């Protein structure tokens, strides 16, 4: 467990890398992913750093690769992925790659321009064909129209009309369908209604040669009279980006021939187009085979140069100086990597790693695996732990699913959840390989698969204790209540809807050892007696039981948290905090909550007579009022209770000033002493400087350390008033929290009540309907109702209730548990690792 209990021990190290070996070394370290480099030139602009040109070259390569990737996507060619992870190529290979990409990009661009031109040609011809087709249609219509009109309007007095109509000019073209209405309107306005526009939709969608988008277009033909109008119309057409095509004025047969002509041209062009398409496809499939590997290579090179930019360049010694945090345990591995890097690059001088002592707080590094990752995740979401303080994650692995299950306790629901978790875990490899990463919600659920598994398992356990499975009970061991011992007569049984079972009547409740009948009785051995399921006072009984057990559970967890605080204090050698904070806190919490838990357990174990059961609530209030317990108001528990309770209350009161004042007082006293001592030292040094050499040295050291303290104020050396204020806040917080947090644990009861009530409602309102019907309708209705029941169970009880129980469990851990010991003021260790860079988890 070692590293999970406390974060890894880290050290600050300086690396001296020969300039020729630096690339290889960093590359190796990147594969290792165990060091995080700090920026040694924070004041230098991004573009003034040493390797900026190389980074730029990488950018350029990435751009080309992105271009190729876009082309792949356009043609819907999948990228070939064999899971290879090539090492970062040496700098000299970069030129090769660059040349390769350059060539590919140029090839691709050439193909694209060719294809574009061909497509444009194709589009034009297609449009032309459409126009010819529609134009024939228009003209035919016009002819028909003309002839009918002619018949009606033939009038020897107006021969001009026919002559004038013959001189009608026309323009034909194609326009985007969406622009047609405004085109029509502008045309009408600009030509004052003196033009005649016909249009028809092109049924098939056309492809825009430049963007490759699919566009819908319409054919139009405009008839007008005179040259001036022609100019206008043409200008408008130009403005609306229409493409105009010359359509010769000829009879429909001629147009038809022309159309045939165009069609054959289109067919020819189609052939050529197909060939270019094939060529393009060929080139792209080659690209698709390699592009993933290229991307990885380029990203690695880029990451290396980015890292090298963080280094300090020592020109005189031809070496780069890097500073990094790394886990102390892995220093060996890092040394190996450096040695390997030096060898690969053929450098004659070894790279040196040197540990540096520092006052800076090291980063927090918790090694996780697939299982612990999600649990560490919920801890880190609250705050990354302070360097080397106790990490709550390992305990959370059990307590989190358990507290969740206390609220979610139902055997059936737990089973469903367990199965879901199991499926995720068993098919883990399959889902990991898919890495479809398209849905955040899925990622979250999948990431927490082990947590779901555990939550399901624990819910089955608590469900078994509550004896609830979809709100029904199992009678596994046989109930220990015996109705026949009540000797009800047939009339009573027949009339009453509910009957009292009196546990005191011999033989009714077989739980009391002294009430055994023939020695055959026993309390229900494990969990809740199934008879409560049908009892009228089930809720009253369970409320009191769950409420109390919540408090006991809560106290146990808080106590555990406080114990972990002791571990922290011991580890950080903070004896002052143990004596002046931890001990009074422990006494305080025991007196205020612990005592309550003790009497809860006491009452459970010893009380047998339900009629004279004591009231703990009133007893507790009386305790603080110093009212002596008496049997009359039901607060008497044991002899000597009064003395014990007075002592407990006095202890609580006594702990308060202890927590509040002891620590600041000691600090104040120590500081005064220290100040006196340094004053004395100074005087001493001034007096005996002449002959006593060792003392001078001592003094110099002292002065030095003093001056360091002055220039770099120690974070612990806070102003005294600040310490006092913090202590007041801490004391108030802790003492109030002891009560409020205990109350907060009552949510365990509240949620579990809500859950069991909801599932019971669902059963009686839905499933019960079907089951209570007689055949033949019964089975059919049951079948129909089952689906309803199933959907609601999953949707409401599993998902929604599950989320809410999850949230509350989270809160209990973050606030109630962790506030007792967890500071969470560290910062995470983000190692320089190719793996995370390639997966895109880290920005540059």
């Amino acid at each position, binding site marked *: 467990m070692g590293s999970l209990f406390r974060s890894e021990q880290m050290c600050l190290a300086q690396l001296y890398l020969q300039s020729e070996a630096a690339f290889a070394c960093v590359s190796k370290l990147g594969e290792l992913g165990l060091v995080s480099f700090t920026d040694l030139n924070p004041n230098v*602009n*991004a*573009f*003034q750093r040493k390797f*900026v040109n190389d*980074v*730029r070259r990488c*950018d*350029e390569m*990435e*751009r080309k690769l*992105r*271009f190729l990737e876009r082309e792949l996507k356009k043609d819907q060619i999948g990228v070939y992925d064999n899971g290879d992870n090539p090492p970062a190529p040496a700098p000299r290979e970069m030129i090769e790659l660059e040349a390769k990409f350059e060539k590919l990009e140029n090839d691709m661009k050439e193909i694209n321009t060719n294809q574009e031109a061909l497509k444009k040609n194709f589009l034009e011809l297609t449009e032309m064909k459409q126009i010819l087709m529609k134009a024939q249609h228009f003209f035919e219509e016009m002819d028909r129209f003309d002839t009918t009109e002619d018949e009606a309007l033939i009038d020897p007095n107006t021969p001009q009309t026919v002559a004038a109509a013959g001189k009608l000019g026309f323009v034909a073209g194609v326009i985007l369908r969406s*622009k047609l209405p*405004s085109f029509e*309107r*502008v045309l009408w*306005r*600009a030509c004052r209604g003196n033009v005649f526009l016909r249009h028809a939709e092109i049924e098939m969608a056309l492809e825009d040669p430049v963007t490759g988008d699919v566009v819908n277009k319409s054919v139009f033909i405009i008839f007008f009279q005179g040259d001036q109008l022609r100019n*206008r119309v043409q*200008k*408008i057409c*130009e*403005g*609306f*980006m229409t493409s105009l095509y010359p359509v010769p004025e000829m009879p429909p047969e001629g147009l038809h021939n022309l159309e045939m002509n165009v069609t054959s041209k289109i067919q020819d062009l189609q052939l050529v187009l197909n060939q270019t398409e094939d060529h393009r496809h060929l080139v792209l499939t080659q690209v698709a085979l390699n592009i993933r590997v290229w991307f990885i290579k380029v990203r690695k090179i880029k990451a290396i140069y980015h890292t090298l930019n963080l280094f300090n360049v020592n020109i005189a010694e031809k070496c780069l100086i890097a500073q990094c945090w790394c886990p102390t345990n892995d220093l060996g591995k890092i040394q190996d990597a450096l040695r390997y890097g030096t060898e690969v690059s053929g450098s004659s001088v070894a790279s040196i790693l040197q540990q540096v002592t520092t006052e800076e707080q090291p980063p927090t590094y918790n090694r996780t695996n697939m299982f612990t990752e999600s649990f560490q995740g919920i801890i880190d979401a609250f705050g990354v732990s302070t360097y080397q303080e106790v990490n709550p994650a390992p305990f959370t692995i059990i307590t989190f699913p358990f507290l969740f299950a206390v609220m979610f306790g139902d055997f059936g629901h737990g089973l469903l959840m367990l199965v879901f978790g199991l499926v995720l875990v068993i098919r883990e490899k399959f889902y990991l390989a898919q890495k479809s990463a398209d849905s955040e919600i899925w990622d979250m659920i999948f990431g927490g698969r082990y947590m779901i598994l555990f939550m399901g398992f624990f819910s089955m356990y608590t469900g078994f204790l509550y004896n609830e499975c979809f709100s029904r009970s199992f009678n596994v061991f046989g109930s220990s209540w015996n109705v026949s011992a009540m000797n009800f007569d047939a009339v009573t049984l027949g009339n009453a809807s509910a009957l009292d079972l009196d546990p005191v009547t011999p033989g009714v409740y077989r739980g009391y050892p002294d009430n055994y009948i023939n020695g055959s009785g026993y309390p229900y051995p494990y969990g809740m007696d199934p008879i409560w399921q049908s009892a009228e006072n089930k809720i009253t009984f369970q409320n009191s039981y769950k409420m109390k057990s919540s408090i006991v559970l809560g106290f146990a967890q808080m106590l555990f948290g406080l114990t972990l605080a002791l571990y922290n204090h011991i580890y950080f050698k903070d004896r002052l905090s143990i004596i002046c904070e931890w001990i009074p806190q422990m006494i305080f919490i025991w007196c205020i909550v612990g005592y309550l838990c003790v009497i809860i357990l006491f009452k459970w174990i010893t009380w047998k007579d339900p009629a004279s059961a004591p009231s703990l609530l009133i007893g507790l209030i009386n305790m603080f009022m110093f009212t002596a317990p008496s049997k009359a108001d039901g607060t008497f528990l044991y002899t000597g209770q009064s003395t014990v309770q007075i002592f407990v209350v006095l202890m609580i009161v006594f702990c308060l000033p202890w927590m509040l004042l002891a620590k600041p007082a000691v600090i104040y006293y120590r500081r005064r002493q220290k100040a006196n001592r340094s004053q004395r030292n100074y005087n001493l040094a001034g007096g005996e400087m002449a002959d006593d050499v060792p003392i001078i040295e001592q003094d110099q050291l002292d002065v030095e350390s003093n001056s360091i303290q002055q220039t770099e104020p120690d974070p612990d050396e806070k102003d005294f008033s600040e310490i006092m204020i913090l202590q007041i806040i801490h004391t108030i917080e802790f003492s109030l929290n002891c009560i409020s947090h205990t109350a907060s644990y009552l949510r365990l009861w509240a949620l579990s009540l809500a859950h069991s009530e909801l599932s019971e409602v669902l059963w009686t309102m839905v499933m019960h309907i079907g089951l209570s019907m007689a055949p033949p309708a019964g089975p059919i209705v049951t079948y129909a109702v089952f689906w309803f029941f199933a959907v609601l169970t999953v949707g409401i009880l599993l998902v929604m209730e599950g989320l809410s129980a999850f949230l509350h469990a989270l809160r209990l851990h973050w606030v109630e548990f962790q506030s007792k010991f967890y500071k969470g003021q560290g910062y995470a260790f983000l190692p320089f690792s190719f793996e995370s860079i390639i997966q895109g988890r880290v920005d540059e």
Partner: protein
Amino acid sequence: MGLFDFAEVGFNVDNGFLEGLTRGFKNGVLCKEDYRHLTQCDSLEDLKLHLQSTTYGNFLANEPSPLTVAVIDDRLREKLVVEFQFLRNHAYKELATFLDFIKYSYMIDNIILLITGTLRQRQLSELLPKCHPLGIFDQMETVTIANSTADLYNAILVDSPLAPFFKDCISEEDLDEVNIEVIRNTLYKAYLEAFYDWCEGCGGATAEVMCEILGFEADRRSFIITINSFGTELSKEDRAKLYPRRGKLYPDGLTELARADDYESVKRVAEHYTEYRKLFDGTGVGIGEKTLEDKFFEHEVTMNVNSFMQQFQYGVFYSFVKLREQECRNVIWISECIAQRHRSKIDSYIPIF
């Protein structure tokens, strides 16, 4: 504004998301530190590298080297347009109208650009890329067929949102260079007045913020028109018609401006207004001195920055667009200075934050 004016209460229901988004965008506006870094760049590649570390991110990553200023300009504008279109597409009711008002000014510019271009016998295909993408509307391209303003209105603009602003400049005159300037200014005047009145109608903080900004815009136009009119054939009466009748100068200042004959008299008018006196003081064209134009820009930037101090109002959207625009101008200025190796004036940008 009455005692029970609760317009702000419901503001976030419709506009909360967009306002938050805009404020987020505003946080991405380059600050002094960024400009200091940018001015230290030796080449446009350096500039690109530095912009990568700002909110512009990888907006130039897909551009092949070597970079040109034109490409940077395009991309900067594209970013503004994308952001604006997002806001516009999600805007609701009044905010949509407000954002449309912002767009109208670009439409006016585009129309004028197209007409001028046509007069100079430029091809439409050459002119279109120069139009601001925010000011593009359906009928815009057909502007070239118009020969007179009446034509322009009747055939083309009557359907466009600009129609109401155009009513004042319909005449049968042919389009020529002077006329176009007059049209531009008349259009702008009508636009500013309409926008101002609309904002005033909104009431609340919007009116407070926007009337101040638009009033300044109106006054600035009046000053600039007056100064630019010296030595042209524009008569004083015609000139007076071009002044937007809103803002601090209206009405007294405008009457005086209408009588002005030279720069000194304009300056004397400005003396009466504390804000404007500051702007006219110490302006010049020498090195180290700021031009009046720059001073106006600076004042505008201050006002736009201040508009973010008020909550629940539309001014932030206007100010954001204007600040982004200023930022584009700054970056382009710096890029030009770098590209042309003309570093002596590189510091003449107008810092925003």
